[in-house]
């Protein structure tokens, strides 16, 4: 009885003082959970979405952000946007990369399949000089680097961040040159809203409408693929491995039971 009384006292004490962890002026807002095509063990990317996402990345993000772990050849590989080889080479050729000519002089030439995506700035100092001393991070693995560990949370965060700009609340001390975004740690971010209006990007077939939300989803899909280009291969092998192991474990279980059938234990 004494113990129970003590226990209930502890519980009452605990709940009386309980405070829910709540957002203040600087705690980043938790991103809303989105439904993504690639969710779950059987999820795959939507090719068209990745192709649109590449276009958004190319026309919007790439003016400030590098993506230096991705090569043009990746754009036509299985499990990605899967452009045809001809399309991929044509897309590469639209981009100029630095190279040396036969005399050792630096030149610009159209990119080939083997080239990495070029960086918009020569180096970090140049990037900072052009961006109010902020350094736009490389986007190659950003979808993994911003996840809170659970598959899908990185993309949720990126989507929330891209679409989450708003007016700073009254009394918020916004530093000059920064933008208010409640999903960013500290609530102020150097990146201006990247997607400012519907129809900012025009895709070839015009479908689905290029709303801000659609463009954001597509570019997040593209960044998610770029961070994990072997996701489809991984999940499809995983399903086969799991089925094999499940059958094997059932057989081993019965083998174990059969071996032990005459032994009391």
């Amino acid at each position, binding site marked *: 009885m004494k113990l129970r009384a003590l226990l209930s006292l502890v519980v009452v*004490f*605990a709940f*009386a*003082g*309980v*405070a*829910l*962890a709540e957002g203040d002026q600087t705690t980043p807002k938790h991103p809303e959970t989105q439904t993504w095509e690639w969710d779950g*063990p059987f999820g795959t990317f939507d090719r068209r979405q990745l192709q649109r996402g590449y276009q958004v990345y190319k026309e919007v993000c790439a003016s400030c952000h590098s993506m230096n*772990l991705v090569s043009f050849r*990746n754009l036509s590989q299985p499990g990605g946007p899967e452009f045809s080889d001809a399309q991929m080479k044509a897309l590469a050729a639209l981009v100029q990369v630095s190279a040396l000519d036969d005399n050792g002089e630096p030149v610009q030439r159209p990119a080939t399949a083997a080239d990495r995506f070029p960086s918009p700035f020569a180096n970090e100092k140049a990037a900072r000089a052009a961006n109010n001393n902020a350094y736009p*991070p490389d986007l*190659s*693995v950003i979808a*993994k*680097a*911003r*996840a*809170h*560990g*659970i*598959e899908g949370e*990185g993309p949720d965060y990126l989507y929330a961040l891209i679409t989450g700009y708003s007016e700073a609340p009254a009394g918020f001390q916004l530093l000059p040159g920064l933008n208010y975004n409640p999903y960013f*740690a500290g609530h102020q971010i150097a990146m201006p809203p990247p997607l400012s209006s519907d129809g900012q990007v025009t895709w070839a077939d015009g479908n689905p409408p290029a709303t801000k939300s659609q463009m954001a989803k597509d570019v997040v899909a593209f960044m998610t693929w770029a*961070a*994990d*280009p*072997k996701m489809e*291969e*991984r*999940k499809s*092998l*995983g*399903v086969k*491995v*799991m089925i094999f*192991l*499940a059958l*094997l*474990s059932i057989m*081993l*279980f019965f*083998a*174990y039971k059969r*071996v*032990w059938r005459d*032994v*009391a*234990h």
Partner: protein
Amino acid sequence: MAHGTYSYQPKNAFTKWLDSRLPILRLMDETMLQFPTPKNLNYWYTFGGILTFMLVLQILTGVVLAMHYVPHETMAFDSVERIMRDVNYGWLMRYLHSNGASMFFIAVYLHIFRGLYYGSYKAPREVLWLLGIVIYLLMMATGFLGYTLPWGQMSFWGATVITNFFSAIPFVGEAVTQWLWGSFAVDNSTLQRFFSLHYLLPFVIAGVVVLHIWALHVPGNNNPLGIDVKGAADTVAFHPYYTTKDLFALVVFVMVMCYFVFFNPNFLGHADNYIPANRLVTPPHIVPEWYYLPLYAVLRSVPDKLIGVLLMFGAILVWAFLPWLDRSNVRSYKFRPVSRQLFFILLIVTWILGMLGAQSVDGDFEFYFGLVLPISKLFLSQICTIYYFLHFLVITPLVSMNEKALPVPESIATAVLARNSHAPKARSAG
């Protein structure tokens, strides 16, 4: 060997010839096939085999990864990503290796707590227990060294925090730390030596594992009843009885690992480690890998660095004294009602320390579901740390000397028969 006699008979001319020169087949037959094993081992006893498998898996995947990895501060991060993108099945090797480390630790913690619960550390298995502690310490070192190799933010800052422990040593701390770094800060020379040591230590572990298994085969397995094997009726041959059981358990364990590897490969890691190391940007919140979290909480519970470091290492070294701190003449906590409850309290305290290790230092304790309990983290970690040491150094000796044990069965065979016929036949504990 402890119980039963062996009857290895070389069958053909070659095995007879070999047996009189290098009796390796005899050794294998005696230790892996015929070895008499208590017939009442439960699934908690399958983790020894699982751990052996994990060590082999880590070495195999690690050797392949080392063929492609570049231990250089400007190239390490990108080389890991290149493994994941351009090496055939490189993503599989890398995710098996990184998740394999976590699964290795899950298995070793279950193995250690199983040893605690059934009193496997008590005579005559003290050396077995001590060798286990050596393996665990080597695993901790190897895991830490491996975590620095991708050279992400958590790699770099984790390495900085951990190597700074040594600066707490009086007088020579700074010199020792710089000697470990090979430099005046964590940098390329640190990364290269960490890679070298990360490749070396698993083979040292393998060597101590051989000793561990040797030390197991002298007294033989303990068992959930904690009583000695009395005769052949208490045992079965290791093969096929425990090979089939261990294999089944292993495959189930591998399925859990495969869930992480194939469907949630970054769940057990930290997102910040996909940000390349940057010595100018300290992450807001440096956390070690999950398997160090309770020790990290012990470290941070005292403001003094030297005492914190000593307590952290002491939290593991105290296990080494357990065989002599526990004065009871009954092994298994099954028959020691007070020790049994204390065991579960110790588990909860260790879990809370783990939660504290994952949280930032200041503020109130963040329980689950976003609940914040009105108790400061510092205070709670101090209470838990004190309790942790009290458990081993004070409570265990006192309780084990005074505890009235429940009746212990005559033998494994009678206990098994009693359980099957529901007619308990037992004698009281000595």
